[in-house]
Each structure stands twice: as structure tokens, then as C-alpha cells.
């Protein structure tokens, strides 16, 4: 039985601002499954991603999130990561002076030390070998490991670095927040190949995307549409195609009619 990420009636707002962004999200992602989450700008997709990871800028006002039955909302972001959750950021922040390689080695060591306080961490030669192998797999220049984290990275490099981090940390459930945005077709293919090679029985993914084109490369098991802070429609891969054809206006019309605008 694989691990599940269970989101139940999740409500959230920006910390210090009462207007809700998530207004009752329900979703179940199993290890081994790929879910696509689509929706127009401002529907709450990125907020969901950040709330799942524990971004302190958001406040959860109701609902629960369980990973393998454990209460995720009670955990700090680092505990969530060590429990097997991963977020590929839409806008990864630059951290001057911290190299990508050094950062990932610390991240691995943090896991090893959490499992065994006596652990001395990963031996550097083994880490270097592993990094080289993963970088090759993602067509990333090996010199990348020595660069400061996201500093001066192009949009495509940032996204590839996010996928590299995912490959190194081997999460059980990964959330990819618009990892396709800003990528040209070649970069998109490389990133998608990377994601495909990582998904499988050991990893489940929630792929957030605004456009259908990402789903030409990453085949989802389920597609969900988010609108106004809720998942309003779920279906198989064909739902993405319907959306592509009819546009988000179709969703808007269906759901604006159902509920009066909130103040």
C-alpha cells in the first residue's frame, strides 16, 4: 500500500488578511499516481502548493492535510520535507553564497540525522557521484553544483534545479508548481523527462499547471480543475483536453452561475 496525501476541506488565507484563498479543498493523491491540477490565474493553485509545504506567509483556517495518516499541518516545513513531501517552487528564491551542491548535501544530511542522530552524513565522494549521475540524467552541466543557489540562474535553469533537487531528495509525494512556466519546448521536454523518470511506484505527483501543453509530456492519471479556492471538477486525462478546447471561461460560467460572488 502506497503513501497517501489527503487534503480535507482545506481553507487558507494570507497571514494577516482575512479574505480566503482556499475555500474547502478536497484531494487525495496516492504514491504512484500523477494528478494534474489546472485552473485560471488566481484560483488558488499556488496557494495550495505553499500551504501544503508550510509557507509561513499563509494561514490555514480550517481543514486538514494528512500524509500517510500524519497531520502535516502540525509540522514545520523541514519536517514535512523529511516526511516525504516536496515542492518544486514556481519562483525559487536565490540564496547568495550557498552553492547548490552544498545545499543538497545539507538537505540529505538533515534527513540522515533525523533518522539517526549519530549519523555523520553522506560521505562527500558518494554524494558527488550521486549528484553527477542525477545531473547527467537531467542534462544539467556538472558545474551547476558549484553555483550559488538560483543566483543568476535563467528561468529554465531554476526549474531544472528544482527537478534536480526532487531527484536527489526522492520524495514520496511531490508538488510541482507551474514547473513548465517560462520553459521553451526543449527545456520543457527535459524537465518532463526528469519528472517522468522519477514518478512511478515510489513517487506520487501533483502537477500544477496553467496550460495543457505540460500534459503532452507528463501523462496524468487524474485531472482536477480549481476555481475560486475549490476543486470544482475532476476527471481523467480527457478533462485536460476539454479544458484546452473550451477554455477556463467554460468553468467560470458554470461556477459563477452556481454561487453568488463573495464580498
Amino acid at each position, binding site marked *: 500500500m502506497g503513501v497517501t496525501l489527503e487534503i480535507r476541506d482545506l481553507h487558507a488565507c494570507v497571514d494577516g488578511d482575512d479574505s480566503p484563498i482556499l475555500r474547502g479543498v478536497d484531494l487525495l493523491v496516492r504514491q504512484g499516481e500523477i494528478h494534474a491540477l489546472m485552473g485560471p490565474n488566481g484560483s488558488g493553485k499556488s496557494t495550495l502548493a505553499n500551504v501544503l509545504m508550510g509557507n509561513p*506567509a499563509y494561514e490555514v483556517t480550517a481543514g486538514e492535510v494528512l500524509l500517510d495518516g500524519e497531520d502535516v499541518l502540525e509540522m514545520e516545513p523541514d519536517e514535512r520535507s523529511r516526511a516525504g513531501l516536496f515542492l518544486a517552487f514556481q519562483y525559487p528564491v536565490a540564496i547568495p553564497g550557498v552553492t547548490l551542491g552544498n545545499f543538497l548535501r545539507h538537505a540529505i544530511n538533515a534527513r540522515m540525522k*533525523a533518522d539517526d542522530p549519530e549519523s555523520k552524513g553522506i560521505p562527500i565522494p558518494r554524494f558527488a557521484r550521486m549528484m553527477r549521475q542525477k545531473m547527467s540524467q537531467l542534462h544539467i552541466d556538472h558545474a551547476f553544483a558549484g553555483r550559488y543557489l538560483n543566483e543568476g540562474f535563467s528561468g529554465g535553469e531554476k526549474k531544472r534545479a528544482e527537478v534536480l533537487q526532487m531527484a536527489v531528495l526522492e520524495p514520496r509525494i511531490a508538488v510541482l508548481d507551474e514547473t513548465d512556466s517560462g520553459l521553451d519546448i526543449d527545456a520543457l521536454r527535459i524537465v518532463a523527462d526528469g519528472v517522468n523518470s522519477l514518478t512511478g511506484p515510489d513517487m506520487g505527483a501533483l502537477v500544477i499547471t496553467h496550460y495543457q501543453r505540460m500534459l503532452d509530456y507528463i501523462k496524468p492519471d487524474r485531472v482536477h480543475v480549481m476555481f475560486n479556492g475549490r476543486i470544482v471538477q475532476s476527471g481523467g486525462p480527457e478533462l485536460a483536453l476539454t479544458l484546452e478546447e473550451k477554455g477556463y471561461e467554460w468553468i467560470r460560467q458554470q461556477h459563477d452561475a452556481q454561487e453568488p460572488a463573495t464580498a
Partner: protein
Amino acid sequence: MAVVRRRSSTPQAPDFSRAQVEALSSAHEEPAWLRERRLDAWQTYAATPMPYLEEEWRRTDYRHIRWDEAERILPANGATAAAVPAKNLEPLAGAEQGGLLVFVDGVVVHYQLAEALARQGVVFTDLRSAIRQHEGLVKQHLMTRAVRPGDGKFAALHAALWDYGVFVHVPRNIAAELPLQVVCYNTKPGAALGHVLVVLEDNAQATMQVEYASAQQARQSAYIGATELIVGAAGNLRYVSLQDWNRQTFEFSHQRGIVGRDAQLDWVNGVMGSRLTKAFIEVDAVGAGANARVSGFFFADRDQFFDLDTQQNHNAPLTNTDLLFKGAARDNARTLWQGMIKSLPQMQRIDGYQVCRNLMLSDSARMDSIPGLEIEADDVACSHAATFGTLEEEPIYYLMSRGISRPQAQLMIIEGFFDELLQRVPFERVRQRLMDEIEAKIIG
């Protein structure tokens, strides 16, 4: 801008005397010219009031110094190199030192110079020996060009009473490949007056590090130092100074580099220790094509006060100076950087840059940066900046999202902040040690 409150009492002066100057000079059987210079400097010292409300001093209150403890010049006391922590004595790179000179309480306790350097004619020795063996060179350069007794009260005091020092001379066209290392360590409270005089003749090269540290004490100390770096035409000096005095030490130092035509000075200055540091750090670009890079890092905690006063003097056209200081402060610490880029009139096509980046790690710490320009030419590219930041939540969250704990994430971000500066220290081993010291301050 800082509001300066009027102080009720002027700083107390230490109780040094002219007789002390004469006794010191006699005890070391110094040549007449040196004795005269000391006595002249004493006159300047005696005629100068304790600095207090002058522009470069008015933000620096050092009246908590207890001269009755700090003014006693450290006497020789039999301490040996065994008193120096092993980390300070590690070779800078590889297994071989170009030269190592260790002072404990102002006394030479260890001296070595690699055969290869000696054969090249490189002089690396303590200043007293140099006065005997290379009198002409010392006489020519000692406090005549770089730091002068008239530079300030403490420069004059130093010139009158300097007690120990280092002398480096690299002859024309000689590259001293192996690095030179100096350690000044004090085991007792009291006054230390150390001098560094480095002279590179035309087209000479050297790399050098000087480290200052002392054992923790309950009683106060004063370090009244001077550093003179003179780089001849087309010379190249890489110089690293690391200060980690104990928390009862007050440092008053004057440091100046003179950079000749087409010469290069790469100077890194680290300030971690002391209770209070007032350092004047200046470069004079005196020949066309001179290039000086001045880097500084500092980290103040608890009740430390650092005042780093930098000046980049463009005394020739086509000169380039580049200054970057980076510092952090936590607890109730205070730091101040005052920077100035100056040019003589009509020094065209100069390029001066200065920036100080501050990282504030507590609400009760205070950091000030005051950049300034005084340029009397029009075809110039001079700029300055000061930035202030705190630890932001966004990067902490990013690192934490990969499983790194909050304290570790904060540590990595602060170390990352300093990394750019530490990369300018040309010794991997020293960089690692400095990282450890920064880490200890963050955690401590």
C-alpha cells in the same frame, strides 16, 4: 543619520611618559635617528588632545576603557609558542610555510623562513632585528610614507612607543611564492603596540597573513597598532589581516597601503574580536594604473563596538580602488563603517567604488554606514552604496522545505552572506576556520 548626544566628560588619557619613550629606546640600544623619531612623535602625541568630538571620532565612545589596566606595556614574561592555540599556527596552505613569525606578548617565540625565500633575498624578520640588519631600508620606510605620527593621537603614540613588529622586504623582480605568516598573540592584559611594515620593490610579489588574538582576560588591554603596506611599481601584494582579540581589548589602529604605478594590492581585513575597535584603513593609489581591492568582514556580538574608517585616496590619474565590506551584528553590538573616496584635483579617469553590506541579526543591534565622496575631477567613475538587511523568512522557508532545520537554514544564509568575502581570503584552510568562527558567533 545618528543623533549624537553631547558627552559630559572628555576621554581620559593613558599615563604614558616621555621618560618611558627614552627608556624603551635605550633598552633596545636603538640608533639615534629612531630615538629622535620616537621623541618627535612623543611631542606630537603630547600636543594632541585625546580624540573625542572630531568628525571621525564623534560616533565612537571609548570612555569605558580603564587605562589603569590597559596602559601597562606587556613585559616579557617567559611565555612560549605553546601558549598559542594550534589553529593559529597551522600552515596557511600545504605543509610548508614560506615564513612564520610568532610573537607572544610582544616577544618573538618562533621564527622560520623558507630557504627558497631567503635565497631570493626576501627579508622577513622582526622589526628590531631588521633595524640592525637592514637599517637603511627601515629608516627609509618606517612611518615616513604610509602611516605617519601626525595621522592622529594614536598614530603618534604608536610612533613614540611601538614595542614590536614585523618587517618584510621583497627585492625588485622577485616573487615570493610561499606565503608569509605572522601571529601576534597575547597572554596577559595590558598595552601592546605592534607594527607591520611591508615593502615590495618594483615588480615584486608576496602573499602574507597577519593574525591577532589573545587569551580571555578579566582585565582590559589596549592594542595601539600600525600597519604599513608599500607596493612598488607593478608589484603585487596579497595581504590578509585577521583580528580576534579578547573581549576586554580596545584596538586603536592606523593601517595604510601605498600602491604604486601599475601595482596591485589585494587586502582583506577581518574583525571578529575586541571589545572596541577603531581602525583607520586607508589606501593611497599613487601611480597611474594602481589597483587596490580592499575587503572587510566583521561580525559583532554582545557588547562589541567596531568602527571601521576607510579611505580610498586617488592621488594619481587612471587609478582603481574597489572596496567591499560585509558585516553582521547581533545582541547589543554596534558597528559603524565610514568610508571616503578622495581624489586630488584633476585626477582624471579614476574609478573608485565602495560598498558596505550590513546584516542585522537582532533588533537591539545597531549598524551604521556612512559612505562619502570628495572628488575634484570630472572624468571619473566613482560610486558608493550601503545596504542593510535582516534574515528574511522567504529564503529560510525555501531551505526548510528541503528538510533543513530552521537554525541550520539561518546559519547557511548568514554564512552565504559572508561567502563572497571569505572567497577573497586566498587560503582554503583559513577560510574554513573563519567559517567556523562565524558559525560560533551565530550559535553562541
